[in-house]
């Protein structure tokens, strides 16, 4: 990056850096350096732990914090009950962990800590992470499906009421759409998070470069970009919630396929 180039590289925020000289850590030949990504996973886990801990007072009449935690568990519980039914309750721990982990990761990644020199890292903007979570959900669907229905689970690829001659055409399509699920699940979250952060970074470079280019450009480019950034920050907070919700919702829908095979 030369001095004439833009001072803000919108992709730099996704760079993974090993922390505290851990780049040499290995298990069985695989590198397990404790990176900034891992650090923010740790922070997410700790913050989420503290959040839920605050709701563990188990009071009969809940305080605000307990109410907040209970409304999250109740939200996941009712979502699973609506999509899977009574059998869905046993997936509450997994879906709750998934939803809250993604939600907190997205939210923490949006914190304006750059002002005080700490750079938040949104690990949900890496498809290695979202892909693993998606494959995890997909694996649970497969395990539950084959555990409950055995080989009968393959009838998932033949929708109910399909005419016999149509089965050879429908089944491959259904199979492909089924196999695409983990990719769409993982890519959706990764793309939404990355796009939002890139957009914010690009706009911030407009603000910085425009303001540095003089009074006129500050007014024409810098100020409108800044106002747009404020709005997009609000939009990104919404997207952070929606993407976590979509991930959890789709996972519960896929679990429904496995749990209640037609």
């Amino acid at each position, binding site marked *: 990056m030369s001095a004439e180039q833009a001072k803000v590289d919108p*992709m730099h925020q996704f760079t993974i850096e090993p922390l505290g000289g851990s780049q040499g850590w290995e298990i069985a030949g695989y590198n*397990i350096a404790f990176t900034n990504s891992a650090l923010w996973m740790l922070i997410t886990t700790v913050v989420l732990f503290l959040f839920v801990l605050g709701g*563990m007072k188990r009071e009969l009449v809940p305080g605000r914090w307990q109410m907040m935690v209970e409304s999250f568990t109740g939200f996941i519980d009712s979502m699973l009950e609506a999509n899977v039914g009574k059998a869905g309750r046993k997936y509450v721990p997994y879906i*709750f962990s998934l939803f809250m*982990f993604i939600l907190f990761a997205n939210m923490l990644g949006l914190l304006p800590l750059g002002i005080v020199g700490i750079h938040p890292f949104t690990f949900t903007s890496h498809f290695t992470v979202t892909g693993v*979570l998606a494959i995890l959900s997909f694996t649970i669907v497969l395990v539950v499906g084959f555990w409950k229905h055995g080989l009968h689970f393959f009838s998932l690829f033949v929708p109910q009421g399909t005419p016999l001659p149509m089965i050879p055409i429908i089944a491959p399509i259904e199979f492909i759409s089924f196999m695409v699920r983990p990719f769409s699940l993982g890519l959706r979250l990764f793309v939404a998070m990355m796009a939002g952060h890139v957009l914010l970074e690009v706009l911030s470079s407009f603000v910085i470069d425009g303001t540095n280019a003089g009074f006129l450009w500050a007014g024409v480019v810098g100020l409108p970009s800044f106002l747009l950034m404020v709005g997009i920050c609000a939009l990104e907070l919404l997207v952070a919630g929606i993407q976590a919700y979509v991930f959890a919702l789709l996972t519960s829908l896929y679990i429904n396929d496995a749990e209640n095979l037609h």
Partner: protein
Amino acid sequence: MPQIAQLAETYSSQIFWLFVFFGLTFFVIGRGMVPKVMDTVAQRDQQIAGDLAAARTARDAADAEEEAWRVRENENRAAAQAIIAQAKAEGAAASEKKVGAAQKRIDTKVAQAEVSIDEARNAALAEVESVAVEAAQDIVARLAGVIVTKPTAAKAVKEAMAHG
């Protein structure tokens, strides 16, 4: 794009730490804490349902109590009415008896009075007769110079009086 450029060198650490921290999240928070939170909610719902049921039974009991009280009250009122009616009847009978006795007393008094009136009248009539007899004797003696005996005069007077 660091996600792809750094893929080869970072994928193992990303996956490893994700498993570590998401595993912690799942086992500690998801499996350990969330069921307790939901337990509290379930307990509260149960408590509320129990309290509502208790309130409902209490209200039903109160309703039954009130109904019983109303029945008792009606019975008491009926009993009181019966007592009043009986007392009224007794009073009426007693006063009737008293009135009857008084009537009887009055009747006898009236009868006695009538008898005494009759006696008085008869006495008076006798008096009038004797006076008339004496007067007739006197008149006859003065006018005719005949002296009639008392029984004769009396007989004449009686005849005259009977003819009016």
